[in-house]
């Protein structure tokens, strides 16, 4: 397992723990794009908003 995969694995575990398993891919995508500096501000806001809207909070 590469070190990058270590982060992905840690994120996978964390999303499961926080009940965000369904959102794992969207969160990872946001993180990867942010880290790669490839995302303009407007796109970041848009992607973040979509992610926030898709999160189901525990009652």
């Amino acid at each position, binding site marked *: 397992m590469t070190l*990058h995969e270590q*982060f992905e694995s*840690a994120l996978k575990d964390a999303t499961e*723990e*926080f009940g*965000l398993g369904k959102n794992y891919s969207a969160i990872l995508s946001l993180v990867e794009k*942010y880290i*790669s500096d490839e995302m303009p501000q407007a796109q970041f806001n848009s992607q973040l908003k979509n992610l926030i809207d898709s999160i189901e909070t525990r009652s």
Partner: protein
Amino acid sequence: MIIFLKGWSSKGLRCPDMQITLPSYKTQNSVSLIQMPNGTGKTTIIELIEACLTGSSFTREKVIALKGQTNDSAIGEFALHIYAAPYFGRSERNISIIIKFNFDEGIGTYYTIRDTSTGQELGWQPPSDLRALLSPRCIEVFVFKGDKVESLLDKTRDDAEQAIKAFFGISKVSELVEKINSSAIFDVQGPKTDKGVTQQQNVLKKWLLQKQSMEGEKSRLESELLQADRDYEEIKDRAEKIRAGEKDARDKLAELESKIQATQLEILATSEKTLRVYKNPLSLSPRLTSKVETLRSNLDQLKLPGTSRTFFLELIEKSPVCICDRPMNDVAKGAIKSKSDSYLGDEHISVVNGIKEAIQTFSTPTHEADEYFLPLRELRSKLGDLKQLEASRDVLVQLNISQASEQDQQVMLTFEECVKKRTKIEGQIDEISQPLSDESLSAIASRNADEIRSLDAIDKVIRSLTEKIAETTKTVDNFKRKELLQECLKKASKAALQRISEVVCERANRKLNDIFPSGTLIEIKSIGKHIQLGFRDRSQAKGSGAQNVAVAYSFASTLLSQSGMKFPLIVDHPMTAVEVGAREVLGRVLPSVCNQIVGFVIDTEKEGFFDALAQSGFALDTLTIFRNIPGNQHHKDKLSNSERAKVGQIGSEAIVSFDPEFFRNFKSKDSVLLGSKQNV
């Protein structure tokens, strides 16, 4: 991706003008040692390499300080050349980052050549796949000075943790967590927590209670109004009748009062007339009139003194004798004359005549005897009328009072109360039913609910609060999601950091095993904020100088290799803190643990290290750079013929030798002096 430091060039700066291309820049596990005596600009070159890798800006003072002493122009330039080996189908790239200095203006401007196929672009714009590792924290790992070794082991610092975070993007994840916080999508006003919603709901509850209370009150008032209307209708006729009776009495009383007033005026007139009649006393009695007439008759017969005097005066003048028959002599004349003055004169006669005339006037009757009593009788009659009228009025007043029975009074009192009650209830219902204009809504909403009685106002406030709570609930929900996302990312970062630190620790120890002689009782026990050394249950703060360097190299090279990118390790004074014996060990194995090592050394670091490197079998570049000044003539004299031939091509400011033998034998003036002192 494998990145190599290809070389650099400088012009017009504090370091000599030079153009360096490292011969082994495409070879993995290669070592390039650049030997530069003190004062040759080694520190300046390393700082500018760092600047090119991070894109950091320059202060005016810094730019001015970089100007070369022999540079007469206003400009200078430094360029760093990087070689990216082909990977994942991408062809090799030659990347250059250039800083152009303007010393007059004190500015340094970046330009980038991302590939030889592209032109020079304004700005610091390294390729995106490279940029992730070009943060100051990452650069600290692969461009480090001798003191970096110590800082990685210092338990009061967190350099090791920060390096791992930077290399594996965990710093960026932390940055992302903060950026989520400041994102415009969460830039909203109002409460953002459940507490805020609860507060709003509590306020809404008060308004709902007030609405309930006001609706109840309105209903009660409407019932009361119905009852009051019934009471009113019931009593109204009786009250009106009583009022009508009172009106008749009032009219009669007014009529009597009017008659009384008229009679009083007539009495006054009759009184005056009566008095005028009785001013003539003769009119009062016929007997008195007769007597006065007698008096007047007597007065007519009266010989008044005025006539006698005239008589005496005529007697004196005409008669020769007095009435007493005595001769009228002078004595008699004088006596008569003097006595005549005592008799009445003409003025006295006028008075008597006046009396007689008055008697004549007043004794003549103007009225018949009965007529003298008419005014008085009239007056008496009027006074009788007045008395009667006043008696009638008093009777009427008395009668009216006595006629207003207690029952009627009670009816009127009840009627008045009924009217008042209706008016009051209607006012209260109006207040509750009063509509509210939208403009006053904010003012109303800021007041206590129990102060507001208008149902319309209460409804509008409730509607507004309900909308706000819905918005707040959505906001709070979004904030909860955001916090959940942030917590998740933090947790993932923390877990990833721990897992990565463990892997780095394990792999760095593998490299150390290759470096350290078998049986060496030191390893990296753990990597937290700092690198903790020790062995099994024992911990130790530091190892020997060589051990510390080996740990730092292992750690750095592990980071560089495990990050998915292979970077050069650029080190200032790589062997300063290492004793000669250990240098030999490190020299043999260091190339195997690093992709490329570019070490800036002084001649005193070579001993042990250079020979070991040369015998290691790995590619080794040996560059010696010194200023082309008369004081270095003895160095120039030692250059080989072939090297000497290149001097002119390289430039006039610096001499660059690539000759390993020249490198090995080069001794700077400082080290010679130091050696002499040590010998002494």
